[in-house]
Every structure is written in C-alpha cells, then in structure tokens.
C-alpha cells in the first residue's frame, strides 16, 4: 500500500507544472543572477564515481542529475526518472526516464546509468565509493568489486532507452533515498572513453545537470553556468554559480562581510555575535551528522573501558550543555542518541541520562566510578585522540576538564587526519573523536555503524543489536526497532554521543530558494534566484 502511494504521489507531482522557482510577489530579480559560495578546500574530483566528499557532491549535484533529487524539505522528488514502479517482493525497481539531454545535446538514456553504475563497481575504476552500490544492495555489486564477476553482471539493465531496471539482493527500505547521491549519477560513456581520466576537465566535461562546468582552477575557484540543454532550463533562473576556496574559515568570514561571498560557515562561537549584528543573515539549520567519542572495547583497548560502568560514568560526566551552549554556540543540540534528532521518522527513546540534570549525572558518574573501583586513590588514566581541527581541539580540552573532577586523567593526543583514521581502524586508541554524517535521510545510516559488521572502530558488539538491525532491513515499520537499538546504545555506551550538528552559516538574504529544512543539506542551485536589493 505504502509503495503504491509513493509511486502515485510522484506521478501526481508530475502532472502539476514543474516546481516553479519564481520570485514571490513584490520581489524583483537582480540583473546579475550569480551565487558565490565558500569551499574550505579544493574540489578533488568531478568524476561522480571517484568523488568522496561533501564539497565535491555539492558541485556534482549542479552539473549532473541522478534518477531522483531532494526537494527543499529533503523529500525525494523526480530527477531524470519521471516515475518508477517497485515489484511486490521489493527486489526490482523499474524507472521510466524523462526526455533529458546531455549538455552536448545527446539524449540521456538508461544505458548511461548502466554504464555509470558498472563503472563504479568495476575494479579497474578503483572507486573509493564502490561500497555505496553494496549499500544499495544492487545485485552482484559485492562480487564485482571483489573481482569475482565481470562488471556487466551488475543488477542493472537498460530495458530500452527510457526504461531502467534495477535488481536488488534484499528489500531495501531506503533504496530510493540513495538515488540522489552523486555516486549514482549517470556519466556520458563516449566522453569518458574519449578523454579517460581528463574527461572531467573544463572543455571536456559533459553533464546532464542544470549547470555546466565553465572553469576550474584547482584550489582557487570553480564556476558553473546555466546549461541550456537541461530539460527544465526554462525554470532555472540562476545563471552562474561559483565556489570559491578559502582555506581559513576566519578569512572566509571576512570576505563574506566584504561582499565577496554569498554563503559561508560561521566559525565556532561566533554565531551569537553575528546573529545579533546580522539577524537576517546568520542561519542555523539542523545537519544530519553526529559527534562522538568512541571507546575502544576491543582486546587492544584499555581494561577499564571494558567495564560498562566506566563507560556510563564518562558519558554522564561530559557536560554536553556547556559544549553546545558555550563552546559551539551555533544551535547544535546535545546528543543522547547516535541518530541525529532531525532524521526523518526517527523517534529517540526516553533515556535516563537525557532526563537528568548535570548535577545528577555527575553524582551518578562518581558513584559508578567508585563502584568500578576507581577514585582519588586509584585514578583512571586514558588517552583521548582527535584529529587536527580547531573545534575538535576545543571540545577535547573541554572534555578533559569535565572528566578531571571525576578523577579521570585524560591525555590529549592530537594527530593528523590520516594517522587518526589509521589508528582508529587498527584499534590503536583508548578514546577517539568521531563523527558520522548521514548518507541518506534514514536512521539506519547511523545505526548500521555499530553493527558487529559495521565500521564500528571501537569493536563493540551486541547480539540483540545486530538482530534488530537485521530485522529492520525488511520490516514494514522500522521506528520501534531503531528506538530499541538506541536504547541498547544508551545502556551499553559504546561511545559518548556528544552533540548533533547544525549547519551554521552566514547567508546573503538576497539569495532566495536556499533550502533550510533538508537535514542532509543537499542543495540545487537551479532552485535559487537572486533578488535586487
């Protein structure tokens, strides 16, 4: 019933005129329709198969278009796929593609998707995001990545030019939500084969998105301009979108204030001041990432952390309110669950820790530590590892001070990102800072992390948890399962959940149409327009 509803809803949406991005009454469009936004670093690649980061995805979403897009609230809306049907067993999806074109005028066909997806899993491409097709449960993806099957055995097929069929190995409730991810975007086979690795360079790149690549100076800026071949070009107002790299957030803010940028992240702690000075520009939007200190409970980890009372005490002793209200100060929320609070359909369990005051928590933490045999005469000594970043540093320093009165002596160990990751993956740490961002807007993107088979670098393992997560894959109603899973996390404390992210930005009020309700923060400049001052 629900799947039928989804399909009809999509079809219904299509019978309406395409979502119009027109200025509201009383607004005048600016003469120059440009949008300039901040990039922390260089865009590493514009190849959808090889992209791994958020900044890259932001550009790819303008230059390419997948089967689905995300609407302003994060709901899936049709992209290249006009409509789709799902088989009764949930294992086969059939998409009907619209009459779309590449920026060189060629039609976008089902074969382009087949080629793109096969290319992602092809060992020769060596895509770092090949796992995404495994996550989508596309048939044979795992075997092809391992080199056991040829890429043409992937469970995706062009029935005809306008019909794409995808076969899955298991029912996947979140499947449709993965289709706006850059890894699933189509690529033009002819162009890729003609230019090989250089196909994404300006002049070579051919995309099917609302914009097309004009220039890319690595580490300086990247410019895309409106693509007249885009199927909905008539409704695209924005003409030029420019991403400007500024490696220092403070300088970026200065340049925003000088009018060089339309959107920039606010450095930690500056939101209250800026929202006072510029109430119409400082915005804080929930952002589907969670921050945690992961405990190493593996054999290589410290003995003390294998005691659940110690883990509970550390979680209780961390004053999240101060971290959120006095350090970050940007509308982030204290975390007592792993799943971000704003994830669609997620209901956080009522945990004891969330209901207590900090005094009660500290009291209980002391009691638990004493019970576990630690106290002033036998202090607990642990190392907290974090990667180089101003905010991680601030939080780690604060955490150290919160735990100190409990008799826990923390040594801070700041290492650079590669070393941090390497040590985490080899269980070479006591406690490590970690954050996870949603790949799609559903709780399992977070909760899968703590499965025994998940990325879970602390090596915590719980049979009931694994069972719940396995059940959730095929369950009709997943909310109670996720809720129970979070209860287990709250009880077992494999990590201290610290806070849930917010995206805290300065945004030029002349730019309209920027989504503020989508927790994944995916944005499409085709929906933006600029009004005259």
């Amino acid at each position, binding site marked *: 019933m629900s799947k039928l509803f989804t399909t009809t809803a999509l079809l219904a949406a299509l019978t309406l005129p395409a979502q119009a991005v027109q200025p509201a009454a009383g607004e005048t469009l600016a003469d120059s329709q440009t949008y300039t936004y901040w990039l922390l670093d260089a865009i590493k690649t514009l190849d959808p198969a090889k992209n791994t980061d958020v900044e890259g995805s932001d550009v790819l979403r303008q230059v390419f278009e997948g089967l689905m897009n995300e609407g302003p609230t994060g709901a899936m809306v049709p992209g290249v796929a006009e409509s789709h049907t799902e088989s009764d067993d949930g294992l086969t999806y059939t998409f009907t593609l619209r009459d779309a074109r590449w920026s060189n005028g060629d039609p976008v066909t089902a074969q382009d998707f087949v080629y793109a997806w096969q290319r992602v899993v092809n060992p020769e491409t060596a895509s770092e995001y090949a796992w995404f097709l495994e996550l989508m449960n596309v048939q044979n993806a795992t075997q092809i990545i391992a080199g056991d099957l040829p890429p043409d055995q992937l469970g995706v097929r062009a029935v005809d030019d306008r019909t794409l069929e995808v076969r899955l190995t298991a029912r996947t409730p979140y499947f449709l939500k993965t289709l706006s991810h850059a890894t699933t975007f189509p690529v033009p086979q002819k162009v890729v084969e003609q230019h090989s690795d250089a196909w994404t360079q300006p002049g070579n790149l051919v995309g099917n998105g609302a914009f097309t690549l004009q220039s890319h100076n690595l580490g300086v800026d990247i410019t895309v301009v409106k693509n007249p071949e885009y199927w909905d070009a008539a409704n695209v107002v924005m003409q030029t979108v420019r991403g400007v790299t500024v490696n*220092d957030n*403070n300088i970026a803010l*200065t340049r925003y204030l000088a009018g060089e940028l339309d959107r920039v992240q606010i*450095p930690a*702690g*500056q939101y209250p*001041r800026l929202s006072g000075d510029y109430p119409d520009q400082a915005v804080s939007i929930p952002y589907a990432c969670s921050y945690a200190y992961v405990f190493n409970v593996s054999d290589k980890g410290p003995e003390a952390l294998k005691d659940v009372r110690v883990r509970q005490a550390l979680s209780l002793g961390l004053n999240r309110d*101060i971290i959120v*209200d*006095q*350090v970050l*100060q940007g509308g982030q929320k204290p975390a007592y669950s792993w799943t971000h609070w704003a994830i669609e359909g997620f209901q956080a369990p009522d945990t004891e820790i969330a209901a207590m005051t900090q005094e009660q928590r500290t009291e209980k933490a002391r009691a638990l530590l004493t019970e576990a045999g630690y106290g002033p005469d036998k202090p607990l000594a642990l190392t907290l590892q974090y990667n*180089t970043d*101003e905010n991680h*540093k*601030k939080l*780690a*320093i*604060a955490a*150290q*001070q919160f735990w100190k009165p409990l008799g826990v002596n923390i040594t*801070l*160990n*700041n*290492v*650079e990102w590669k*070393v941090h990751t390497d040590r985490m993956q080899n269980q070479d740490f006591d406690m490590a800072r970690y954050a996870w961002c949603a790949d799609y807007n559903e709780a399992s993107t977070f909760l899968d992390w703590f499965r025994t088979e998940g990325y879970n670098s602390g090596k915590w393992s719980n049979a009931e948890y694994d069972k719940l997560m396995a059940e959730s894959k095929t369950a009709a109603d997943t909310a109670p399962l996720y809720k129970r899973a979070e209860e287990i996390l709250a009880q077992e404390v494999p990590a201290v959940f610290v806070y849930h992210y917010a995206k805290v930005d300065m945004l030029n009020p002349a730019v309209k149409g920027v989504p503020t309700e989508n927790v994944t923060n995916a944005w499409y400049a085709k929906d933006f327009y600029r009004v005259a001052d």
Partner: protein
Amino acid sequence: MVIDERKMRSLAARMAQAEVRGRSPWADARRRFFRNKAAMAGLMILVLVALFAIFGGQAAVWSNEELDFSVMGQVATMGAPSWSNGHYFGTDDLGRDLFARTVQGTQISLLVGIVGAGIAVIVGTLYGAVAGYVGGRTDQAMMRLVDILMSIPYMFVLILLLVMFGRSMSMLFLGIGLISWLDMARIVRGQTLSLKNREFIEAARATGVPTWRIITRHVVPNLLGVVAVYATLLVPLMILTESFISFLGLGVQEPLTSWGALISEGAGTMNYGTLWQLAFPLFFFVITLFGFFFVGDGLRDALDPKDR
C-alpha cells in the same frame, strides 16, 4: 631573517688571530659590550622574559588548562584582561587564562629555541672542526655532504618528519636543530684550517695528544666567540621556525602551548573583539626576538670591533 655569514667569518678570523697573539679578546669585548646601549637593552629584555617564564607561574591565579565557566561562551565581553578575576591577560576562546598560557608558552618557545640552537651549534662545530682538522679526503667528503644537504628544502623534510614520527617535543628539538648546523659547520671548518698549522696545535700534536682531544681542547675553545654569537642569533630563528610549525598544526600537544600556537590562534580571532588573545603573546614574541638580535649583534660587534 638569516644570519649575516660574512660577518661571522670576519669574527671567526679575528677570534683565531687574537688568541695567537696571546691576549684574550674577551676582556676588551666585555667592556665594549657593556657600552653598547642596544645590546644592554636586549639583555635586560631577555632577563625579564626569562624571569617571566620562570616565576610568572607563581603570579598566575589560574592554571594553564582550567576552564573558567563564568567566562566561557562570552569571552568577547567577559574574558578581557582584568585584575579582579585574575585573568591579567584575559582568556582564550575556551575561557582559559591567557596569562598562565603565555607563561607556559614562553617556557616552551624559549626551550625549543635554546635547545634547537644548542643542537645546531654543537653538531655544526664538531662537524666543522673534525672536517677542518682531519682534512684530506675526509674533509672533501664531509664538505661535499654539506653541499648536498644545503640543497635540501629543510622545512619540507621537517614537515615530513613531524608527520611521520608524530608530534613530540624531542622530534621538534631534533628537527629544528638539524635545520641550521650547516652554515656553522662551514665557518668552523674554515677557521680550523687556519688554526691547524699554528704552533700551539703543532706542539700538542708533537707531544702525542690524540686527535679528538686536540679538537675538543685546543681547536674548539678558540672558536668560542663565533659559537656564542652564532648561538645567540640562532635562537630567534629557531623560535620563528617553531611558530611556523605551530601554525601548520604540527607543534606541541594541548594543553601545552607555545608562542606560535598562541599567536596563530589569536590571529584567527583578531576581528572578533578579542584582540588581547593576539596582543599578549605577540608582544612577548616580538620583544624576545629583538632581545636576541640586539644581544647577538652586540656580542659580535664587541668581539670583532670595526675600529681595530
């Protein structure tokens, strides 16, 4: 910001000469040094900064890692320098006392500067003296190696070292010290060559004193003036190098800090109404560098007066 090598050569030549003439250059030099106003001012500054580093901690109300929760989150309004709450230099963004942190940062920066310069001077002197004294093929090979090492972009190698071995004080000392011994080695070698054939060295050799003892007992003491001046001028360079490393985020671990780390944090927030976070560490950094330059220059001028 590099030491004027030519002047060092001239100084080295004079030191070797003076010794042979049988009269210590030091007595005259002391007189000249005390008459040099800039050098004396520099010396005063250095003494004061050293006292600050050693005893400043006694005056601090807060430790260098405590968070002041009454200030945290409203640093721009509450964290300014104040006598009443004990934050003489204000607080950093987390509400930590900047006075205590500046004291502690001063200790680290001075330590890195002095140990780094010490390593460079010791390695450079011994290397240069051995090459110059032994001479021949050994000298050729040793100096060729110096030529090769001179062409290596050291800052790059230092970054690699810190990335590879992780960040630790000893790595920082070693890495920074290893950067600048090459010039020292060259100068020392040149002077050793001219010392080598002097009577007192030949006498020592004739009486069968082993090579190593000749180098350490007779050659090196005659280079002491150069070594002292060079070391004084190297310290500020080492401090600058450390600040750059801290800027890259490869410096000492929190809660420890250094001038470089404090300055680079303060520079980031200079437009957010917390200028004291930059001003205090930068002040100590700048006056200390001046102090070393003035003392180093003064020492050199005193030992190698132009009006000879």
